[in-house]
């Protein structure tokens, strides 16, 4: 949209340039109903347009996109997540090691017992 050759569409939008086509529904619509109460009419100049003030009421506290680059809660979550993962891995390793010692110790004792009880 930043090129040099741009059409000027102003005339088409403000009615000074005729369209090069006819509306596909021209002549095919039935007669318009009498406008229901409250529908737009140039003869009713006293009606107020929607106010913009209420829209301001729901305006979000706008945060600069770049200001929130680092999410501190996410950093904490990652930190505690990594810590938890390290602790879990440590527990697995130590428990595994303890299991090996216990198993081997039991086998060693069983071996000694079998030697002692050999006739």
């Amino acid at each position, binding site marked *: 949209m930043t090129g040099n050759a741009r059409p000027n569409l*102003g005339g088409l*939008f403000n009615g000074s340039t005729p369209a090069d086509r006819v509306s596909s529904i021209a002549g095919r619509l039935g007669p318009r109903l009498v406008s229901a109460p409250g529908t737009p009419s*140039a003869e009713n100049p006293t009606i107020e347009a929607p106010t913009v003030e209420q*829209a301001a009421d*729901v305006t979000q506290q706008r*945060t600069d996109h770049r200001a929130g680059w680092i999410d501190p809660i996410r950093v904490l979550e990652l930190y505690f997540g990594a810590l938890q993962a390290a602790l879990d891995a440590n527990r697995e390793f130590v428990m595994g090691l303890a299991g090996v010692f216990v198993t081997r110790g039991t086998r060693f004792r069983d071996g000694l017992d079998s030697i002692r009880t050999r006739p």
Partner: protein
Amino acid sequence: MCDMRRVVAIANGKGGVGKTTLTAGLAGQVAAAGHRVLVVDTDPQGNLGRDLGYGSGDGNSLGLAITHGLPLDVIRGVRERLDVVPGGPSLWDVAPAFTSRGARGQTLPGLRPALERLRPAGTDADYDLVLIDTPPGEPILQDLVFASSDYLIIPTRSDEASLDGLVVVAQRFAAARAVNPDLTLLGVALFGVRAGSTRLITRVRSALQETLGGAAPVFSTSIRYLESAAVDMRSRGLLPHELAQIHREDKSQRINRLRQGVKVDTGDALLSRDSSAAGLAGDYSDLAREVLGSIRTRDDAARVEVAV
């Protein structure tokens, strides 16, 4: 608050420029601000249901209202003060009906009579704003919408291809004024630009203003591009201000989880960041204010013309 409805079409001759997302976001924002809003989905794809979270429709009622003048089925209370006439695949039948009956010299009711009969439930007041989402590649449906609208908003992206869509919609707009002389271009909304790309936005806005030749403004608020927020919103049927609200609630829940040492399940986590969602919600809020302000300015100008 206001006894007079305005019918605003959201259209562009090109697809994928944010028509449906913009329609849903604006409607939600204006309804949240206290106005009564009706959204009409004239797209046979019926994607508005995803944005607003009401699921899918068949568009049958809308199609029959256009071709036979039958009453419209309305989904009431999609949000507070927000009703929807759903679109869907049945709208593919509208164009053939117009063509065949037009060839026999018969006329069809069109969209306007059915819309004029619709009122919000539980109140004597009328809708303040009717927003109509249009399909890009259906000339007859677009022409029907233009014949029933007071204003037009054109969403566009910053790429060159979007300009082609602008030319198409300009021709259609000019042709529609033969049927509906009151149709007015309210403005062009720049959609899907990367946050912080100020130079690009300035350049594109300047190019658009030159193209429009002063016929209407380019809204000063542009809607930023946020893929993660778009995925979050469509997958959950949330509007931008609702996503921002969920982020705020989610933040306090996450802090509590950290305090209690509860493990975080990231499977269902939001993809977007809270600051991004808040920024996006702010864009829609600003644009809604601009649109309503622009309607008021145009109405004031019309009153002066009538008085003169």
